[in-house]
């Protein structure tokens, strides 16, 4: 398994296609948590595919104001067809050209296979990796780790806020 970037590391910025004619940069999402989910390929043949699961959990992620991004080496046309077939409501990024370049910067590329690891990153509001996890490639890592990380991030922010003496009206 590749060695993925550890918590505390600034998340490498990138600009990738999110649709055939639209791009998205990580830095545009500063100020909110980002869930970056690298996965091997669109069209995984099982029910309860990783992206389908995150799609169901979107309302939970939104409670933490987190933006979820799927990312694989599939091209944007492929992503578009996959997202339409699965009714996905979050962006899928194409790490397509040069292939896997972004995945490599996160240590989440499988040279031997030519596709991404199942690697998860929760990035904080300042663009620093708060939590990361690499699952065996055949195992859908689920969402429990991500939700726990988002919860911990929220708690950290709150306790930090209290330390600074900021008062929150309840």
């Amino acid at each position, binding site marked *: 398994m590749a060695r993925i970037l550890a918590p505390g590391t600034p998340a490498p910025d990138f600009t990738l296609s999110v649709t055939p004619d639209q791009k998205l940069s990580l830095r545009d999402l500063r100020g909110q948590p980002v869930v970056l989910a690298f996965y091997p390929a669109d069209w995984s043949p099982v029910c309860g595919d*990783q992206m389908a*699961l995150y799609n169901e959990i979107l309302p939970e992620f939104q409670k933490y104001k987190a933006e979820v991004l799927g990312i694989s080496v599939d091209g944007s046309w492929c992503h578009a067809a996959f997202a339409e077939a699965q009714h996905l409501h979050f962006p899928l990024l194409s790490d397509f050209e040069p292939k896997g370049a972004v995945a490599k910067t996160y240590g989440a590329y499988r040279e031997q296979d030519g596709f991404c690891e199942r690697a998860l990153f929760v990035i904080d509001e300042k663009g620093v990796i708060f939590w990361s996890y690499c699952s065996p490639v055949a195992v859908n890592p689920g969402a429990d*780790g991500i939700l726990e990380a988002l919860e911990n991030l929220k708690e950290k922010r709150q306790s930090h806020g209290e330390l600074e003496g900021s008062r929150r009206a309840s």
Partner: protein
Amino acid sequence: MANLKVPVGPADHTLSDEHAPVTLVEYGDYQCPHCGRAHPVVKALRKHFGRQLRFVYRHFPLTQIHPMAEPAAEAAEFAGANGHFWEMHNAIFENQPSLSLPLLAELAQALGLPSEDLLSALESREFLPAIKEDFLGGVRSGVNGTPTFFINGYRYEGLNEFEDLVEAIDAELLSAKTQHRRAG
């Protein structure tokens, strides 16, 4: 990371003895073909283990890929509120290939439940919160697809075939007995 976070409680649909030494929890989706195939397996397990095995079913509908999964789960909850959860549960799985709103209405009618009551419960989404609660509990427990089984709180990672599940449950029965002997 993958143990059952929500213990079995009074809100659950359970079959067999609450003091059974082994509890099998399934997170399932009524429109998932893998769950459809697991249904007769669970039935066979219950027959095989009798009162030694308690079975719990929780909802994990993947609504975006299975548009009938959530209405079906709501129909099961509706029947459950009228004391017929398991009849509806079985009927849905047994008719999975033809799952539709008219079918759910028909199944309700067959249980003596007015189909208009079911349709109005579906419309008001009366049972949706209970289903969401199951779903989110599943997510927190690391459920990543369906069916996912937990045996005495531990996630079962094997194949969803009768022999494989029997082996896993037998192992749990054995360890339950050993612990019992130690405690006694």
